[in-house]
């Protein structure tokens, strides 16, 4: 790549980030953001815990959506990253006696490395096989952790270093971390999609054959996506377990993480950025409304997902778009439809 091209690419990516921040400002408008930041002073611990769940699950759904909607990689085993990220956080913090928030970036790095390593076997599979393959990956890791004594085996580990914080601070800092993770993932996602990587991904999504023929490095794009999405999920998982204070293999490597992410994305709309936002709101609204119904809630959720995939594969956002076409994040690129008038052939 020539120096000019590199500079142009950096410029393009820089502009993309700038643009993303500009646009995200619309949604994360200062008022809302300020209100959310100030929450620890007027909200109770229950509310904070709920929002930690909302923000972290939103980030995980964004990650799943990135993979599936923009990379064509349906990863049923996304919870692999959640387990890896949370265990990385807990073990680094416990072993090195590090402040959990200092350990968090290292946990992100660990997750990224796990993504790189796992890509080797996983990318040998495609489509549905990749989907279930990632699930095998999560399962094997779960069992490995379950049987590892120094990770606490079945009982898991507590987050020892967090006890040095008083309850108010702990709740507030975890809450703010989750807000940062949620908002940061959104900004990162939008920036990525508006960058050259995003364009590459979209071209691969539209037609991999054509993209490859045009020189788009499909494998690199997919790998980058896998690492980014995995890191987002891992970090979100780590923050989530900061909130629960104990990490166990069955909980952190649980399929229900991915299941929730899938429901959110399917309900909201795959392959859009607005979709996961809508989906998260709908998901939690439904959860709070139907919590008492036990299994029937999941039966309803599952049926809804089935019906949506068959009837409205674009999710709620695409349904809404039919009435109010908006592109909140300036990501969609519309090709002008050429009206062709071939001349009549004289016979």
């Amino acid at each position: 790549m020539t120096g000019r091209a590199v500079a142009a690419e950096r410029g393009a990516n820089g502009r993309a980030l700038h643009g993303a921040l500009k646009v995200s400002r619309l949604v994360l408008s200062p008022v809302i953001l300020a209100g959310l930041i100030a929450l620890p002073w007027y909200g109770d611990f229950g509310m904070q815990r709920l929002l930690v769940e909302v923000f972290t699950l939103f980030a995980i759904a964004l990650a799943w959506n990135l993979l599936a909607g923009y990379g064509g990689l349906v990863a049923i085993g996304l919870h692999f990253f959640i387990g890896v990220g949370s265990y990385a956080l807990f073990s680094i913090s416990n072993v090195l006696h590090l402040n959990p928030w200092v350990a968090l970036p290292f946990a992100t790095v660990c997750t990224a490395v796990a993504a790189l390593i796992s890509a080797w076997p996983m990318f040998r599979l495609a489509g549905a096989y990749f989907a279930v393959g990632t699930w095998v990956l999560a399962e094997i890791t779960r069992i490995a952790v379950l049987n590892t004594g120094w990770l606490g085996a079945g009982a898991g580990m507590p987050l020892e270093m967090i006890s040095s914080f008083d309850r108010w601070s702990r709740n507030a800092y975890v809450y703010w971390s989750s807000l940062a993770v949620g908002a940061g993932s959104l900004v990162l996602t939008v920036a990525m999609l508006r960058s050259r990587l995003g364009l590459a991904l979209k071209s691969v999504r539209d037609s991999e054959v054509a993209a490859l023929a045009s020189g788009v490095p499909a494998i690199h794009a997919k790998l980058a996506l896998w690492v980014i999405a995995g890191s987002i999920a891992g970090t979100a998982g780590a923050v989530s377990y900061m909130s629960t204070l104990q990490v166990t293999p069955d909980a952190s490597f649980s399929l229900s993480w991915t299941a929730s992410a899938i429901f959110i994305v399917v309900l909201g709309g795959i392959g859009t950025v607005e979709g996961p936002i809508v989906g998260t709101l709908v998901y939690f609204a439904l959860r709070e409304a139907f919590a008492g119904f036990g299994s029937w809630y999941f039966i309803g959720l599952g049926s809804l997902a089935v019906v949506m995939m068959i009837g409205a594969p674009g999710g709620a956002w695409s349904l809404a778009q039919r009435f109010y076409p908006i592109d909140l994040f300036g990501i969609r690129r519309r090709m002008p439809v050429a009206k062709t008038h071939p001349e009549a052939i004289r016979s």
Partner: protein
Amino acid sequence: MATLVETLINGLLLGALYALFGLGLSISLGVMRMINIAHGDLIVAGAYIASVVTQGAGVHALTSLIVVVPVMFAMGWLLQRTLLNHVVGSNVFAPLLVTFGLSVVIQNLLQEVFTADTRSIRAENISQVGFDIGGVSIGLLPLLSAGVSVGLFALTHAIVGRTHYGRQSRAVADDPSTARLVGIDDKNFFAIVTGFALAATAFAAVLYAIRTPFSPTAGPERLLYSFEAVVLGGLGNLWGTFFGGLIIGVAQLLGARVSSGLGPFFGHLVFLVILLARPQGLFAKAAR
């Protein structure tokens, strides 16, 4: 502790059961190019149906097959016709996500109806009987399961090779659009194929139910073993799935020798290692 030979033989017999789990998956994959995420849950559903029939009618577990097989055929037929036909052949997501949603629905329905407790089907005259062959102790149930598995694979092989439906399956598996061109009616045909896949799975479900205590959430693990058998064997290869299952069975029991909780772990590990070495599976689609 059991001898190594005994572990190997029992591994092969267990593997034959896993192969039978995978048979239904292999059929849908081959003909409709779809992984049914709910496959494992359907096995468990079959186990519950068998349990209900066995207890309700007071019959032996194997006799319950008379009911379970047609019921599961009908379930498969209905499933394909009402839901899955809408998503066949479209993008990668739709079949995966529809069957994922279905998986959640089935698991929770089973939980509602049968509670989360584990249960099993008692068939002492099979499960408690064993033979001593040359110093190796082998149970009747594993032998029976392996025999049923081989039999069903052979039957499927014969159907695929010699009957009209078999020819159509091969044609659709080769080239779906040209298959339509020669008039193969997707919708009804696919429904029959899924019905057959589930009917074969019914046998796996009953044998599994006798062998292992099951609960509503036992589905996903069955799916993973089925999937591993199919992928290891090589996609599109029927007998490949059989050998894939054998490999997983042996790997699991050898792993359990090392440490009793690590059976499935070794199965997954062997799967990943073979995948790294030979991504197309051990026996890729038989070249014609």
